[in-house]
């Protein structure tokens, strides 16, 4: 193999690629972080709802009016999941965590591949430059 066609990745990764990698990592961190933030607020209504007095429970969730509107006669309704056999909150949490993990994996993969392709492209362009100069 001639020096012109040295194997891929033999030249060091350049600065712009690193910058793009940093953007990628930052992006892939945003989603899980937001998931954690969101999940803490999701988990809140459940222990609150376990209390018998319904409107107050909804109030801790931050929207008393909405709860009252959505659940006419909310007291009985909310009392129903006082003794939830299946932990809805945990399932909710799991669902969101999985979705964010998948989305973050997608972002990370796309960004990393982009930076790799760009680095490769830059290196190739330089090699073409060199090759055309020697040709001339």
């Amino acid at each position, binding site marked *: 193999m*001639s020096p*012109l*066609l040295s194997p891929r990745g033999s030249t060091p990764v350049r600065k712009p690629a690193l910058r793009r990698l940093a*953007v990628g990592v930052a*992006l892939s961190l*945003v*989603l899980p972080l*937001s998931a954690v933030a*969101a999940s803490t*607020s*999701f988990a*809140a*209504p*459940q222990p609150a*709802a376990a209390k018998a007095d319904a409107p107050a429970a*909804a109030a801790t*969730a*931050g*929207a008393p009016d*909405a*709860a009252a*509107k*959505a*659940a006419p006669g909310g007291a009985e309704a*909310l009392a*129903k*999941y006082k003794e*939830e056999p*299946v932990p*809805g*909150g945990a*399932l*909710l949490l*799991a*669902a*969101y965590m*999985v*979705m964010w993990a*998948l*989305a973050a*994996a*997608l*972002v990370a993969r*796309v*960004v990393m*591949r*982009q930076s790799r*392709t*760009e680095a*490769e*492209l*830059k290196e*190739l*362009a330089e*090699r*073409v*430059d060199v*090759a*055309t100069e020697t*040709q001339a």
Partner: protein
Amino acid sequence: MTAHSPAPLQVPVKQPWLLLAGIALGLALIEAALWWIATKTPPDIILGVVQKVFYFHVASAFVMLLTLTAAAGTSLYDLIRPDDRADALARSCLEVGVVFALCVLTSGPLWARKSWGMYWTWEPRLTLTLLVTLLAVAVIALRGLAEDPQSGRRVGAAMAVMGAPASFLIHVAVKWWGGAHPQVLQGGGIRSSEMRVAFWLAVAGLITFAACMVVARFRDLRLQDRARSLRLNLSALELRRGRA
């Protein structure tokens, strides 16, 4: 065939600022939806707090349908009039579609555990989603396994097109089959305006995000095309130099 069209050698790679802005917008919308869901929407009367899976579950299903349909459409275009851009778009739509299909397939059962009492039923719509996802994964895998990239591209495109009428017919079939799947949107099942706001925020956020991911992947594939044509040019230079 535009397979090895000689590309301009020295076009600088532009920074995708618009793309990054789009991702930021999508994330902001998603954050807004999350905040709205967490603080404004009431828990469901019957299902309780787990109902809040709904917003992003259904939005993911939306995105999955959109991207997979777009993948079939662009594949069809590529078959009729071969175009590298249509091919790259089809590939990126397919990959993003699979990710969102996985989102739907994981969040759905977790919700079902509470509302139906079990993770998985052979409920028609679940079956449909799973089948379509498997087909999409097979199409992605197939492209890498073909003898040469060009034939893999055409075969993959044909498979993607083939999947479209099949999934439509399964959709018809499963409607007759009958099932327990909630028909929230058709039935006007969203009870409060807060829920509606949260839902549409989630849909807008996910669609923006997914579109940006498709564009990002598309850009990457196009850059790879350019890298390939540069490598070809290099190989031509090298071959000609060897003769001298």
